């Protein structure tokens, strides 16, 4: 009955851990391995205009978070301007305002953008779209209506309509209605504009998309444009340059509409300069930064939200369960004997700080000298608690001495001896002498080397890069460790050391 209960609990805790880990991995994009990198882009805009002593209001289009695009970090630098951001018409704008400005005004905007390559082309469903005015009038409107009517007859659905229209606009004969609309201008921006206008005349919701090519290290990057039309509840991108229903590769969709990147009221000569640079960010940092800007209650529970020093503490603490789990296996499945239940894990923690070789050396040194002193104290017949206190004091003295001497000798590694758990050391010395007296030096040495061996294994487990990364990034994975430990709590099989012990009973003498 208890067996079943424990099994169900184990399974539940394990699946919970697995589920949360999976969620963090798949949904929040925390990478499973420490060295995965993700493409991130730094976009820098230098905007300027000339003010004429009047109130100034400038608006700058900002990139915004959509499916597959995350803004990891953004900064504004402007002198003396009031800043506010606002979301309208599916665009995000930065408003800069000042009561009075004179002369050339410059400000900077910088953003760190992560574009998820998988989600890039997935559009969200949006039924709340209605056709809008084309903005055409007079002869332009009539020409557009005629074109739309003739294409409508030849097309089956919105997609074929767009494709036909695009091919007709791209190869206009000089006297046709198309050339009238384009007014002899074949630049892609204009083609896109006309596409949007004609689609709107045909009562198909459409919009112009202004985008930026994400290429590594590009000073004064140029903006490009394509269109999006509404079909079956989603915005479908269409690139007139390629004729594909896809936005251009490696392009950031920045803002919609015909508004310029920077518009000013009360000033002249608005100018923008865009620079793009690509960088390979550690994927974990992307995921953690993504988590900070996103309002996901689970990802804000990441440890990376803590102050750096506290993070360091947890980086250390979270590896302890791994060491303890190993200890449980070594004690209950293998059957090794150690001094004190968790002493080896604490020693391993200390080794982490001192480095293994120095750690083992310093530990043996303190233990050895401590033992000698303890054997001397034996003759004085001191009471237990004062005796233990004496050992603690002696251990502290020893550590101080080692630090001072090693520092004088220019061996600053010796300083790290201060990181050993003093009381644990003192208790180990005391326990060891008792075992030494009661059961002989052999048993004492067996136990101390057993503890050392376990501490070594724990050290290797706890300092493993992968373990450290996992426990820190996926702390919920420790639930799986908890489940396994719970399961081991009901392990009733033999310990490995019992096999030779009971071998006589196997009937094969």
């Amino acid at each position, binding site marked *: 009955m208890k067996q079943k209960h424990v099994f169900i609990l184990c399974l539940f805790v394990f699946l919970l851990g697995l589920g949360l880990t999976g969620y963090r991995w798949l949904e929040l994009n925390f990478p499973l391995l420490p060295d995965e990198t993700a493409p991130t882009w730094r976009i820098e805009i230098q905007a300027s205009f000339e003010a004429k002593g009047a109130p100034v209001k400038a608006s700058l289009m900002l990139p915004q978070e959509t499916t597959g695009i995350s803004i990891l970090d953004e900064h504004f630098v402007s002198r003396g301007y009031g800043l506010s951001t606002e979301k309208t018409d599916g665009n995000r704008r930065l408003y800069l305002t000042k009561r009075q400005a004179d002369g050339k005004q410059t400000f900077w905007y910088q953003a760190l953008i992560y574009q998820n390559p998988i989600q890039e082309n997935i559009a969200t469903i949006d039924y709340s779209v209605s056709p809008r005015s084309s903005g055409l009038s007079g002869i332009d409107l009539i020409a557009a209506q005629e074109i739309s009517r003739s294409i409508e007859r030849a097309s089956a659905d919105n997609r074929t309509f767009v494709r036909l229209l695009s091919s007709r606009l791209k190869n206009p004969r000089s006297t046709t209605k198309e050339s009238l609309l384009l007014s002899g201008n074949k630049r892609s921006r204009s083609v896109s504009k006309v596409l949007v206008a004609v689609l709107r005349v045909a009562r198909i919701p459409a919009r112009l998309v202004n985008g930026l090519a994400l290429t590594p290290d590009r000073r004064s990057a140029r903006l490009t444009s394509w269109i999006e039309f509404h079909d079956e509840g989603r915005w479908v991108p269409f690139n007139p340059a390629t004729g594909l229903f896809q936005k251009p590769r490696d392009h950031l969709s920045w803002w919609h509409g015909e508004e310029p990147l920077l518009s000013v009221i009360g000033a002249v000569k608005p100018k923008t300069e865009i620079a793009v640079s690509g960088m390979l960010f550690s994927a974990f940092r992307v995921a953690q930064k993504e988590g900070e800007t996103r309002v996901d209650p689970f990802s804000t529970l990441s440890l990376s939200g803590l102050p750096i020093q506290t993070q360091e503490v947890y980086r250390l603490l979270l590896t302890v369960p791994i060491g303890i789990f190993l200890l449980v296996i070594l004690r209950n499945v293998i059957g090794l004997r150690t001094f004190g239940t968790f002493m080896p894990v604490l020693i391993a923690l200390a080794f982490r700080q001192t480095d293994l070789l120095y750690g083992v050396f310093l530990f043996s040194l303190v233990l050895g000298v401590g033992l000698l002193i303890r054997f001397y104290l034996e003759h004085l*017949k001191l009471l*237990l608690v004062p005796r233990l206190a004496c050992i603690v004091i002696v251990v502290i003295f020893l550590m101080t001495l080692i630090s001072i001497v090693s520092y004088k000798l220019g061996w600053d590694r010796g300083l790290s001896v201060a990181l050993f758990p003093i009381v644990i050391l003192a208790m180990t010395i005391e326990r060891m002498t008792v075992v030494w007296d009661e059961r002989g030096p052999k048993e004492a040495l067996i136990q101390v080397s057993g503890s050392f061996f376990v501490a070594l294994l724990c050290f290797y487990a706890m300092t493993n890069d992968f373990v450290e990364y996992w426990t820190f990034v996926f702390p919920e994975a420790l639930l799986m460790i908890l489940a396994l430990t719970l399961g081991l709590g009901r392990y009733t099989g*033999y310990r490995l050391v*019992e096999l030779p012990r*009971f*071998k006589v*009973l196997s009937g094969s003498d």
Partner: protein
Amino acid sequence: MFGIAKKIRAAGVIGVNQRNADYILKYNSRRFYPLVDDKIRTKLLAKKFGIAVPELYATIEIQRQINDLPKLLSLHDDFVIKPAHGSQGEGITVITGQTRGYFRKSDGSLVASEELKFQVSNILSGIYSLGGQPDKAIVEYRVKFDPIFEHISYRGVPDVRIIIFMGVPVMAMVRLPTQESGGKANLHQGCIGAGVDIATGQTLHAVWKNSVVQDHPDTGHQVAGVIIPHWDQLLDIAARSYEMTGLGYQGVDLVMDQKFGPLLLELNARPGLNIQIANREGLSPRLIKIQEKKFSSVRERVSFAKENFRSIYV
């Protein structure tokens, strides 16, 4: 490796994990532990149930009392000092006599009373108790063991360990001190364990340090084939200790005194597993047999054990 595991499982051997998980945690309620962990309480309890124990001369509870120790000890020629919460035979001092202010230990060496005081003080500080809790020291009657064991033990006092499950004697062994064990009857410290047939009280082959031996390593006498006197009485005391403590799975340690007969030495809530080696039989089949039964009296439990747990080596 797995081959051995398979074979010893087939032999019904119980490992530490299984003993803890399936028997101790299941049948031994933690609230009964103090009854057996504190040897003073065990003594008082045994007296209440009419079970004979080595006479308690004195208990020392605080450091100050240590100064009165020489006066206390002068009343008795020989005695045993042990911690009330000791385990695995640690911290026990056996004094066999006194000469000119010195005490003679069981190994023949002489100690001054200062040394005994220090030993008692150590006991009080809790050095031998679980978790280092402050402890009490017991001074009690030194058992003069039955001459039957004279040839097969080296100094010290041999004792009989019987495992009791739900009040039924399951398996027994006699522990014979050796030179290596320093006169202590503890398998961990190097004494000999010889299995005892539950049905007849006859000793089987012996085990020393996990291997089977025929003779006592110090005296050279054969260990097997000795009939333990008052065997039925021993079984009866062991079976009754279940009512005494309420622990389903326990080890009962008994000694055979020349003058007083069988005495209850102590009880153990976590008895060791070497008894299986001493008997060359696993505990599991016997325990399962008991789990399937219900008993109404001590007599019934003892006779069930004698009928069912006859050793295959007799």
